[in-house]
């Protein structure tokens, strides 16, 4: 298993431009941490006001204030979600699912001062015993913050391409 021991995604100073390669490295690091269930390290990629959202499949452009989402976490809810999925009593994820993510089509949509709006596509394969496999396909929308110590995630929006969750069942892990 490969390891990434340090956060080296954005070694640049604040005033140097972030490149797509920087963003790609950052997203690959995040995918690796999630796939390896290194969720405490993953949380260190988040700002203190980070949000994580998965809208319902039939309402991708809604707001969690007026639409039913699948996940609409603020930073505290993310912290509690991580506590939950790390607990052996989180039956849906114990033993942990094995996941393998592929991140593609990465592009910087907009740079607004220190804020970098990023879009990407993903495929996340999830496997559980016995013989269960799920294929989550969709797009990612991030708002990243360029800080002196590197990139951080302020907003993380996951949009599923399927018309309904259907055979995907649950989103019981960090998608």
């Amino acid at each position, binding site marked *: 298993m490969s390891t990434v021991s340090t956060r080296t995604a954005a070694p640049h100073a604040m005033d140097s431009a972030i490149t797509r390669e920087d963003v790609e490295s950052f997203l690959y690091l995040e995918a690796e941490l999630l796939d390896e269930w290194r969720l405490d390290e993953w949380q260190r990629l988040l700002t203190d006001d980070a949000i994580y959202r*998965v*809208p*319902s*499949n*039939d*309402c991708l452009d*809604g707001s*969690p*204030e*007026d*639409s*039913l*989402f*699948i*996940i*609409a976490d603020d930073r505290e809810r993310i912290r*509690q*979600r991580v*506590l*939950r999925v790390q*607990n052996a*009593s*989180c*039956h*849906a*994820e114990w033993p942990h699912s094995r996941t393998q993510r592929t991140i593609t089509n990465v592009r910087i949509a907009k740079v607004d001062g220190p804020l970098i709006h990023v879009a990407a596509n993903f495929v996340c394969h999830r496997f559980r015993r*016995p013989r269960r496999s799920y294929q989550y396909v969709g797009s990612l929308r991030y708002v990243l913050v360029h800080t002196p110590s590197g990139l951080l995630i302020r907003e993380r929006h996951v949009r599923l391409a399927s*018309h*309904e*969750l*259907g*055979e*995907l*069942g*649950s*989103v*019981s892990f960090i998608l």
Partner: protein
Amino acid sequence: MTERRPYIVDDPARGVFRLNREVLVSDEVFRLESERVFGRSWIYVGHASEVPNPGDFRARIVAGRPVIFCRSDAGDIRCFLNTCRHRGATVCREASGNARRFHCLYHGWAYGNDGHLAVVPGENAYPESFARGELGLRAPARFECYRDFWFMCLDETAPALIDYLGEAAFYIDLVVDQSPSGRMQVIQGTQEYDVRANWKLMVENSVDDYHLPSTHATWLTYMANSGVDVRPKLDQGLVLPARGGAIDLGNGHFSTDNVNYRGRPVASWIPLYGELAKAEIADIKSELVARLGEERAARVAGTNRNLVIFPNLVINDGSSVTIRTFYPTAPDRMQVTAWALGPVEESASARARRLDSFLTFYGPGGFATPDDVEALEMVQQGLSNWTDDPWSEMSRGMGKPANEQLNSDEHHLRTFWRRWNTLMEAS
């Protein structure tokens, strides 16, 4: 031929209630249920608020049948089988929208949103016997509504919906009473997910509070972390943090009826809602008291209830209000649809709180539902041993008077199985 095992063994005198596990795995039972349970019961179709304007439609599968739930140009709510009278294709292929006509893509027949056959390309080639007026979209035999909840029934001889609901109507009223105008609405955003388990396990799971401490240990931890007292009242003989009853409502319907400890957007504050929410929740409570009186306001705001309308409609009035329905696609598989419901006049802040509270517990990304799904799928896997371990034990609480049956007993589950058994044993 040997006599088959009964579906249930129900012997109150001996305190025995056992369920034949075959009913959760059998293809034959699955086939019979389609006719004897889903073909004879009132089945939830949709809520009036989902089709507010003339021409609005929702195409959905109701108990395995593709239907169109719509509002006609005349303003009436209608339900049609989504099947062309010509060759049988579905005539509405979008999940929702607004249409004056439903067009069959195959040969171009088109129907009005009142169901009448409006267009037949090349109609002059049909013989004189062709009865266009009789070829409107088929409707289910019965289609009736209670407080904006619309149900269909495929059995022409079924009792009226209001009689079918019977005492369960009271529990629907308690939910609708959240709204000052008596009007609730389905909120946009639909959760649709499959579970690899028999549908009847979802019925049980929706009201079985016995499973909560074990299945939902992490949700209880989360609530405790947020400042809610979730310690079970063991000195009162309870496995749960508050007392709750199990109510048999007749006709196979049943509900839990629990003293609330877990917070309610309408209207019991918990720390999760934040200090800023206190004043608004107090206002909501005051409105309830002024409109309904102290006693009923306490019922609406201070209890949470999981209601099952036989066979497959669940209305959970707990951390939020959910409408959940599900139907089997195989003995070991079901498709679940869940919506959030709220008062039409709710403020933006109260609506946001309701939706946030929903996600703390319910749904595919909630802190509880995924563990329910896991539990049901584990049951289904374990049931593969049904021939060698053929009975499920369901006697919890048996022998106590009805008014002492707890939500953590299995009285309400037995209510379901007795009704199910009666329908299945009828030929």
